[in-house]
């Protein structure tokens, strides 16, 4: 996702959520429901889609991105501790936060999901669920199910997504900042979150599902947090692009990652 730097730049924003390869209509049952990779006993998975699928060829239109993924072990054993999560997104999409309220980490601390919405509802850019395994000494591991809210925010002056996770049983709240980083290559925009040991049981991350996207009004104009186009030639009806890549850095320093390719259709 390209971060919008100047007002009025919309007309000049390069369309395209991603570089396109050969095109393709996604046949019914089309691309596999999630791509997976394995390293040793550990399996990483990622699935996702862009909505709407049909987009203009020549100008960016509002979109939302749904992603689902996680870690599991082939043998059903304990999940390793994750120290960093990196979510790569196409560099040619458009990310706009102009006129979108921003929330601070402080305002989200110690809040339930409802309280977080109340405190920072204006900055809401996504929602979802996550699961993490809790490993305590002398006790069977158990899984926490949490609701996720994503808020527009900044961390050390950098644009970020503040991920608020709340679990009712046992009552747990975590606010995790995913900071935007610019890079090179197919996934030129990365959302990076460090998971410090102070997070306790949460780093034994198992699964997440998240939809990012937000339409809002600013100075009488309709705007979108995420925008994309499907820039393919007129004679072609659909195109493939790399939608996302997730990389988990583990406690032992190793990494495991997988990426997904999806299609768009030209409207």
């Amino acid at each position, binding site marked *: 996702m390209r971060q919008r730097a100047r007002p009025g730049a919309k007309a000049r924003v390069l369309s395209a959520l991603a*570089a*396109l*390869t*050969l*095109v*393709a*209509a*996604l*046949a019914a049952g*089309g*691309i*596999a429901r999630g*791509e*997976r*990779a*394995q*390293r*040793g006993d550990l*399996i990483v998975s990622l699935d996702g889609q862009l909505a709407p699928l049909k987009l203009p060829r020549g100008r960016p239109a509002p979109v939302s991105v749904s992603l689902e993924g996680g870690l599991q072990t*082939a043998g059903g054993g304990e999940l390793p501790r994750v120290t960093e999560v990196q979510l790569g997104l196409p560099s040619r999409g458009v990310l706009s936060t102009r006129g979108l309220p921003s929330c601070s980490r402080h305002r989200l601390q110690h809040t339930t999901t409802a309280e977080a919405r109340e405190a920072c509802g204006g900055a809401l850019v996504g929602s979802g669920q996550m699961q993490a395994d809790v490993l305590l000494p002398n006790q069977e591991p158990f899984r926490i199910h949490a609701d996720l809210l994503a808020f527009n925010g900044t961390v050390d002056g950098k644009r970020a997504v503040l991920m608020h996770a709340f679990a009712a049983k046992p009552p747990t709240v975590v606010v995790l900042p995913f900071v935007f980083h610019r890079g090179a290559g*197919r996934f030129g925009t990365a959302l990076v979150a460090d998971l410090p040991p102070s997070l306790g049981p949460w780093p034994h991350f198992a699964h997440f599902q998240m939809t990012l996207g937000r339409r809002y009004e600013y100075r009488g104009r309709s705007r979108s947090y995420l925008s994309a186009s499907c*820039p*393919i*030639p007129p*004679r*072609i*009806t*659909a*195109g*493939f692009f*790399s939608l996302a890549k997730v990389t988990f850095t583990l406690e032992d320093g190793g990494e495991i990652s997988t*990426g997904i*390719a999806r*299609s768009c259709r030209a409207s």
Partner: protein
Amino acid sequence: MHARFAAALVVALLTVTAVAVAAEGPTRDEYVSQLEQICKPDAEATQRAMKGARADVSGERLAAAAKKFGTATAIFGGTVKKIAAVPRPEGDEAKLGKWFGYLNAQESYLKQITAQLRAGHAIKAQRLTARFIHNGNLANNVVLAFGFNYCSFKFSRYG
């Protein structure tokens, strides 16, 4: 006489042992390592050959894209031929048989995409590409436990 018989017995036993070892084949780790050594240069060559293919298709330079897909097809076919000749680990034959089935289908899709691009049939090529990607993901799932890198299908290698 006894000495000759003993020597023959030793030779026979050694032969049986050797045959047994050969029949066991490599371990899965050895197999993966062997295949990755074959796939690595070919995967890198594919990436080089396919560079700019997306831009070619977007720019409607289908003949240029066809040439790149043709090169990738030849590399892929060569790789499959080489890795198919490697002895397979005992117990993994069925799984690998299925994988090679998918790989053969991948090669066929690449050939068909190349042909359609050469003929200027962009829509047919786009439909085949959808199947190619889907089939590649299915192939990966069959051998997930092997932890292949260069021998696995990666969309990003194709331009």
